[in-house]
């Protein structure tokens, strides 16, 4: 009885999560440029449109470049910080941990507006690289959290053994710490990458008038009416996110990354 009840509950939640995507997927295969569901006719040309139409292709390219670079910068900021907090006892340095978590915790409009006023004041407003820095700061929380988790999972006796054998900090980091922390670096990067790909408000407020990322392009297109390309881009986004997170789950321990104990304990 309760088993059936919980199955029904999971089905309804699953339906709720999937419903908009089912409709959008339906819309994306319309034969003509209409927004109809159930779709009238069948065509995958709207998926080709993403790559063939120069406007959509440029937006796709801009989004990918932004996500690749900003996620890398976010990891570059988070890794030394997480390492320092794990290696040293310096209570005041925790303030930087807090600063790293704040941009993601506060309402995004606030971070976006702060960066907008900053870039406008310093005169760099609209330059493409400002979006990379802005996204890296906005998403630094994600690699910071996964890396902090990864460092606490390291067995300190391994490091101690290496130190007793005469290895210095640099050697220990390269030969012991880095291989252990690598899965967390990858998943932190993956989280930051996917979120940067999808991010709208920070990108819009920093480079919205000079460059179009995919979410900005979708929003601008929305204001001039619908095209099925928006639907196909949406499905592309969902699929990309699902594939990347599945890969993280395949090569790492996703439940553990999200706070569960490791699979050996359960």
């Amino acid at each position: 009885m309760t088993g059936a009840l919980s199955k029904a509950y999971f089905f309804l939640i699953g339906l709720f999560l999937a419903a908009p995507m089912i409709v959008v997927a339906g819309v994306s295969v319309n034969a003509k440029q209409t927004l109809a569901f159930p779709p009238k006719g069948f065509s995958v040309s709207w998926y080709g449109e993403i790559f063939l139409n120069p406007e959509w292709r440029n937006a796709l390219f801009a989004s990918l470049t932004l996500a690749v670079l900003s996620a890398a910068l976010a990891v570059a900021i988070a890794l030394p910080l997480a390492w320092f907090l794990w290696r040293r006892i310096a209570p005041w340095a925790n303030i930087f941990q807090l600063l790293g978590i704040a941009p993601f915790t506060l309402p995004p409009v606030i971070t976006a507006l702060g960066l907008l006023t900053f870039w406008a004041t310093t005169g760099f407003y609209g330059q493409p690289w400002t979006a990379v820095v802005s996204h890296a700061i906005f998403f630094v929380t994600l690699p910071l959290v996964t890396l902090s988790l990864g460092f606490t999972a390291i067995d300190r006796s391994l490091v101690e053994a290496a130190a007793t054998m005469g290895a210095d900090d640099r050697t220990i980091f390269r030969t012991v710490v880095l291989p252990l922390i690598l899965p967390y670096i990858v998943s932190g990067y993956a989280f930051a990458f996917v979120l940067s790909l999808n991010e709208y408000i920070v990108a819009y407020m920093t480079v919205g008038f000079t460059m179009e990322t995919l979410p900005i392009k979708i929003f601008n297109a929305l204001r001039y009416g619908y095209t099925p390309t928006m639907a196909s881009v949406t499905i592309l986004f969902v699929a990309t996110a699902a594939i990347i997170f599945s890969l993280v789950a395949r090569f790492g321990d996703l439940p553990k990354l999200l706070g569960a104990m490791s699979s050996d304990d359960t």
Partner: protein
Amino acid sequence: MRREAPQKLSDYGPLFFPAMMLIVFFVVPFATMIAVSFFQRQQGGFYVPAFEFANYERFLSLFFANVLGFSLMLAVTVAICCIVLAVPFTYLLTRMKRKVQIVWLVALLSVLSLSEVIIGFAWSTLFSRTAGITNLLVMAGIMSEAKALLPSFGAVLTGMVYQAFPYTVLVLYPALVRLDPTLTEAARTLGASPIKAFFTVVIPALRNTITATLIMVFIFALGSYLLPQLLGRPQHWTLSVLITDQAIYQSNMPFAAAMAVFLVLVTLGLVALTVLAGRKGEAA
């Protein structure tokens, strides 16, 4: 190697780059925004340094009282809906096989990572007249003709719950997955039904977690900047939407900044208040 305090100046080396980046590109922009909130607006979207409270005085109007009231009410409603849906869901999820959990977690993360533009677009399609669910109801013969379900408050609420639900589950997940399973087992042994055990054992054990999650989801919902605009009418606009509107379309940066500072203060104030209330509740 034990953790040790930094001994030499060079021990601080690794901290230099992250600290510099966070200070220059987060603390300084935040301070710039606060400074701009006191600046004077000029015609044509520019502003000049000044120190005046004019931007803040504009809050003291009925219009802003209404917007603020609506924003808070909407965020609280979204948070409560999400908690009610997510607590039983997450509890059941953590009791499932690890493989099944992973599938659900991947799905939740994928939805969570969607931008508000995409969520807004997807729901406006689902609620639209031409491509909406009402078409299915017409086909099934339940409704006579398709109609648009937006813009409406219900559409805004649905979109925001959709956006915040995966976040709620992922915030609750660590606490629930670590919940001692013997607690419910004991209740079951003593004859409680699974549902009764859930309400009398699991929920009370998680009281603090649920309160903390409620605050986090509330702040998350307060930050929604597009959904009220895409799915609702102008009276459904929240503070976040107005900030974006003033900054981008009205080019009134000082006023937008003042509202943003105000939003930070309201957020922090409510968090402090809730934490305080929680402490008192525990002491009593």
